[in-house]
């Protein structure tokens, strides 16, 4: 049997039941595939194409005028508001994401505890996700419902301004002035953390308690390492949410540029803005991934090390075996050509 044949897996014919299952599976994911192709991949490609053009949509035709990087230079040189908002957005996101995630975790842990009317409180915290969106959110924010009137945010900004750059100080000030909004933005994250907390094996806590572990120690040694992946998930979700909601100035700016009738703006200009923004959002997601990305714990690392050692040992054994076989063949050849004689016990070497 040749070597190739040895490697080839035996072909097993798919049964009718299995084929039907596969078809149903594809049918189930079909809406998603169509959705992604039509509403993600296609618009993404389209906007990538648009950003190199000045696009004028007249009632009779759509005119594409090649401007190359003209849209980008126009944005950076003629629209000082965009870079300014971009910097504000970066700082705001970096400041707000940890606050939202930590707040969501605290609330989730409280809701996971033994409290009365647990379901009611869960509903209360999730309610803003359903109610406070779109125009309702805009209305509430314009009415000042997102801030705590008693909180003097200007004092916070003034205090920060003395030792932090202005854009950072205002971002922190914004955070304080929109404290209520942080609560509204935490609904989904609380749910994710709740489901994660409920998956933690209670026996771990029991064992820790028996060994004299305090609640504080249990949180740091058991809860946090177990839900670590969910922290990243929530951080990424929050970045995406903050980057795309209707309160985001950059989104409004892109939207208004898209529908602007002035000769410089329009779809091409807005696409260039959107792509620059998308790159920044990706970089922020990457930053959180680097900070919170799953690092293997000590036990996982030991298992991996042991596996590697075993593999190394196997390789060494195989190498020794191969060397032995080689030597045997060599001796055999020497013996056959009478260059070498094995000792036959007659005392004559």
């Amino acid at each position, binding site marked *: 049997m040749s070597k190739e044949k040895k490697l080839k897996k035996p072909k097993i014919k798919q049964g009718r039941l299995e084929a*039907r*299952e596969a078809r*149903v599976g594809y*049918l*189930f994911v*079909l*809406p998603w595939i*169509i*959705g992604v192709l*039509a509403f993600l991949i296609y618009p993404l490609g389209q906007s990538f194409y648009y950003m190199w053009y000045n696009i*004028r*949509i*007249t*009632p*009779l035709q*759509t*005119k594409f*005028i090649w401007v190359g990087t003209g849209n980008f230079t126009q944005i950076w040189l*003629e629209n*000082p508001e965009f870079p300014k908002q971009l910097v504000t957005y970066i700082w705001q996101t970096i400041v707000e994401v940890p606050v939202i995630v930590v707040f969501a975790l605290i609330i989730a842990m409280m809701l996971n505890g033994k409290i009365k009317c647990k379901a009611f409180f869960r509903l209360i915290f999730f309610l803003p996700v359903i109610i406070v969106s779109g125009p309702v959110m805009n209305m509430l924010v314009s009415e000042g419902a997102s801030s705590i009137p008693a909180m003097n945010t200007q004092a916070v900004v003034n205090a920060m301004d003395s030792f932090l750059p202005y854009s950072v100080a205002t971002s922190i000030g914004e955070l304080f002035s929109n404290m209520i909004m942080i609560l509204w933005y935490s609904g989904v994250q609380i749910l994710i953390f709740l489901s994660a907390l409920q998956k933690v094996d209670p026996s771990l806590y029991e064992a820790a308690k028996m060994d004299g572990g305090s609640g504080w120690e249990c949180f740091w040694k058991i809860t946090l390492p177990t839900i670590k992946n969910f922290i990243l998930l929530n951080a990424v979700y929050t970045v995406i949410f903050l980057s795309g909601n209707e309160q985001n100035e950059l989104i409004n700016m892109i939207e208004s540029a*898209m*529908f*602007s*009738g*002035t*000769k*410089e703006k*329009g779809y091409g200009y807005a696409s260039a803005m959107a792509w620059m923004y998308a790159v920044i959002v990706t970089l922020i997601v990457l930053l959180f991934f680097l900070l919170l990305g799953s690092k293997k714990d000590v036990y996982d690392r030991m298992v991996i090390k042991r596996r590697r050692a075993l593999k190394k040992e196997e390789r060494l054994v195989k190498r020794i075996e191969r060397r032995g076989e080689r030597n045997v063949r060599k001796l055999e050849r020497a013996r056959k050509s009478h260059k070498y004689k094995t000792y036959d016990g007659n005392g004559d070497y």
Partner: protein
Amino acid sequence: MKKKQIVAAILAAVMTLSLTACGGSKTAKSGSDNSGAAGADGTTTDEITLTYWHYEDETTIGLLAEAFMKKYPNITVECKQISDMSTDLSAAAAAGTFPDVFSGTDSDTALANEYWADITEYVEKDPDMGKMMPTIKEYGIGKFDTDRWWGLPTWYQPSAVFIDRNVIEKLNLEMPRTDWTWDEMIQLIKDATVDDRTGMKYYGLGYYNRLDSLYGIAACSTAERAIKGEFGFDGNDFDLSYWAIGEQQFSDLKLAGYVAPQQNTQAMEDWSGDWGTWFGATGHVAVFSEGFWSYQNLWATEGYQDTYGLDIVPYVTPNVVDEKEHNVIANMYIGGVSSSCEHPYEAYLLLKFMGIGTDGWNARMDIYEDNSITNASGVALQHSNMPVPMTLDEGVWARYKALFPSDEDHKKYWDDYFSSITRPVPYGWYSIAGYWNFCDQYFNKIGIHDLVDNGTAKSADYAEEATEQANYYHAEAMLSYFGPTGYDVLSDEEIARYEAVTSSFGQ
């Protein structure tokens, strides 16, 4: 398994259907083909539908559309109120549902995207055009400094200066002559500012329109410079030195305490005791630089003036030079026939009927005279941003004037006012190509008004640079809109002239 299959099939079907629905949003254009038969007056005899998008009161336009359909029974008119011109029209253009006729407030948007068709043929043959206010043809309002007509004014309200006679009487001042000059107005503002510390201060001026907006038109005699637009625009280029004088004069008045505080400010609360008070309802302001609508929508409503102890009369925006007949700055929406319209002549008739036409104005008068007709808010239509006729037809004007106070005390003010507003000049964003870009990308961005109002800068320091910028934006817009990449109607000389401006800019 069967259940799963059914659910999956339904999901896939719903998704496919929704996609098909999205793709099918490009509907056919309204109206029938233009190759149909034509009647004696040149209009089609086919059953057609025209769409009209506008900024006016929905009830008024709905009733006007009915009157138009009565006149042309084979034409159906569908109207829609525009909420945001750029957004609504660009979305309609992208979706293939562009209106046949629309009236807008920002001409740059319409020109940059070639929304308007060339209607020169219809305008120049139209005998009705001879009856219009002279500046429309003289300055080519709707021609945008080309030799073609792209639009026509559809809605007109002049700026106005109002005087509260009660305040003048209380302060023992003389009412000025109705054909006053700019300096007389400034003097009255100063004289009528009285703070005797015993009660609420009297202010000389309350403003909606900054005085510099008015001054740009009133700055000089026509012999000195034939100004036909804001910022000293004479059809070729700008001269913001005129604007700078008005800007500085207005800011000086503000800084010296002659100007009443604005609504929703701390200064207003300190003065009137209420943050939300409007200065026009205090009875302590003598002169108002207001929109015409403030009279019709507020002061003219029943009991308003009695409640606040006011006696408001209109004055024409004065000129620096004592000229009897002079231009007046105005809000003038410009409407046009869309470049995709399949029935341009019928669309032109609709545009004219809704805007400047005498027939349309007679239909409007029927609506405005009947106070029982109200809009969705329950307001009689003459109190809902009623425009001023642009036709000089005497019949229309007689009916229009009858809507205003006709008692002996007030009539002469209104008669003088109406006879002085026959030379409207629209604000820049209606009639000057590139004006919007200039304001958006330069003028508003550097915040000249605030700097001068705060006393931290002098307007004259900006005049030269702002003039250069304004000329650049205008030239660039003219090339872009009407040059080879746009409508392509500029002559080689014109292109060379505008290119000279753009290439010399910043050197």
